[in-house]
């Protein structure tokens, strides 16, 4: 009996850590933990999932400056409302000197972040303005802060990936569409880009495009989800691939039209583009 309870509890603990529980399951787990005298067990599973979630996490993407400002403003409201912290908050907001500025530190920081964002935007506009003349002389050394266009990111992958797989897009089962372009993918770098023309602009509230990757690790019935995307302009678009599993030796790629948000398994009713790897 205890073993069965233990089994159920483990299932619930694991589910809670990986995908969360519904309210009934939460109650069931709480009851079981109490019954087994193991209250608090679930947190160690959640901590494990949290630790694993950091594996290969790319934290190089900076949080938007306006979001930082909003969080700091929220902090001011939150700590002002919390009675036990009010005293210390106030003392911390006011500087050591009596001649402190009238605004709070959070307000000041909010403005500082916003100002930094404006400066960054101005620099970005300056450095990414259209170049119509041939520039001569010493080029600046690229830095980690350099913002690359999708085209540059694609080219950088092509230049640096010795195992690059490439395939040309052709028509799928939607006869009126004649997509063109190509797809490049590197197993070693686990990165790739689609270059596409001829796909109509889609309304993401009604439908989305979804890439599927056929490779040697998955059965053809269940290809790897390569991510959803929106085409929001006419002409050539370049889209980074966001594979949900690491593909290996890719052999074919397909783009389908799916419901907003994408699907786990496609019915393949509208295949708008297909690309077979040339080997």
């Amino acid at each position, binding site marked *: 009996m205890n073993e069965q309870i233990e089994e159920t509890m483990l299932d619930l603990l694991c589910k809670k850590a990986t995908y969360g529980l519904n309210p009934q399951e939460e109650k069931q787990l709480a009851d079981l933990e109490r019954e087994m005298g193991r209250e608090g067990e679930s947190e160690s599973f959640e901590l494990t999932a949290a630790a694993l979630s950091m594996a290969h996490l790319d934290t190089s993407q900076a949080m938007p400056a306006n979001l930082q400002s909003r969080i700091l403003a929220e902090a001011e409201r939150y*700590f002002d409302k919390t009675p036990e912290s009010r005293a210390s908050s106030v003392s911390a907001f006011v500087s050591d000197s009596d001649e402190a500025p009238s605004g709070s530190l959070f307000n000041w920081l909010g403005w500082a972040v916003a100002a930094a964002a404006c400066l960054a935007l101005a620099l970005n506009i300056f450095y990414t303005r259209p170049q119509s003349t041939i520039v001569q002389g010493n080029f600046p050394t690229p830095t980690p802060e*350099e913002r690359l266009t999708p085209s540059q990111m694609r080219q950088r992958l092509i230049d640096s990936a010795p195992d690059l797989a490439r395939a040309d897009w052709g028509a799928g089962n939607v006869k009126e569409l004649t997509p063109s372009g190509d797809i490049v993918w590197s197993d070693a770098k686990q990165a790739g880009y689609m270059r596409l023309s001829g796909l109509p602009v889609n309304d993401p509230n009604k439908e989305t495009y979804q890439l599927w990757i056929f490779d040697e690790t998955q059965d053809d019935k269940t290809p790897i989800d390569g991510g959803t995307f*929106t085409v929001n302009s006419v002409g050539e678009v370049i889209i980074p691939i966001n594979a949900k599993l690491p593909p290996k030796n890719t052999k074919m790629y397909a783009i389908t039209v799916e419901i907003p948000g994408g699907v786990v398994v496609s019915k393949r009713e509208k295949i708008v583009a297909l690309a077979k790897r040339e080997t």
Partner: protein
Amino acid sequence: MAQAILNRISAGDSDAVQDCLKTYGGLVWSLARRMLRNSEDAEDVVQEIFVDIWKNAERFDPSQSSETTFVAMIARRRIIDRIRYSARRISADSLEDVLVEPTNRSDQTLQTSVEANEAAKALKALRPEQQQVLQLSIVEGMSHQEISDATGMPLGTVKTHARRGILQAREILGLGSTEIRREVSA
């Protein structure tokens, strides 16, 4: 130094809020962006996560986990809630969503890297099927049924891999008690 931030927040040190944002902003933002895909959803959730972090700061116990892992756990709870109660787990990416701002690698990234390396080692120690299932569930936020549909694995097999994988990882990372360890070797 970084490990004291939550204690300082629970003590009402308002400077610690800025340090918290500076230290964990990148981690929280990256987790939200990776699991939610849509930057609008991610922005809403990240704001809520930081409120959760302040509320739960006093619960942090350094004997149970690192502060970074605790913050990631708080973040995941909120992100999972959003995924579970939204119509669909992933919103469509637009090109602008994927290609966002320039990188800003600073000390908080390095701190997270230590944790990320340990996690990567723990994942690598698991069987490939366990890695695959945990990758899809923990990183992509997919349910066991969705993983079964997406990979063709029977649902029971998915559950087994998820359970054994997380138990083993828990042991490798030293995050759990010894009571359930016997399951790992099963």
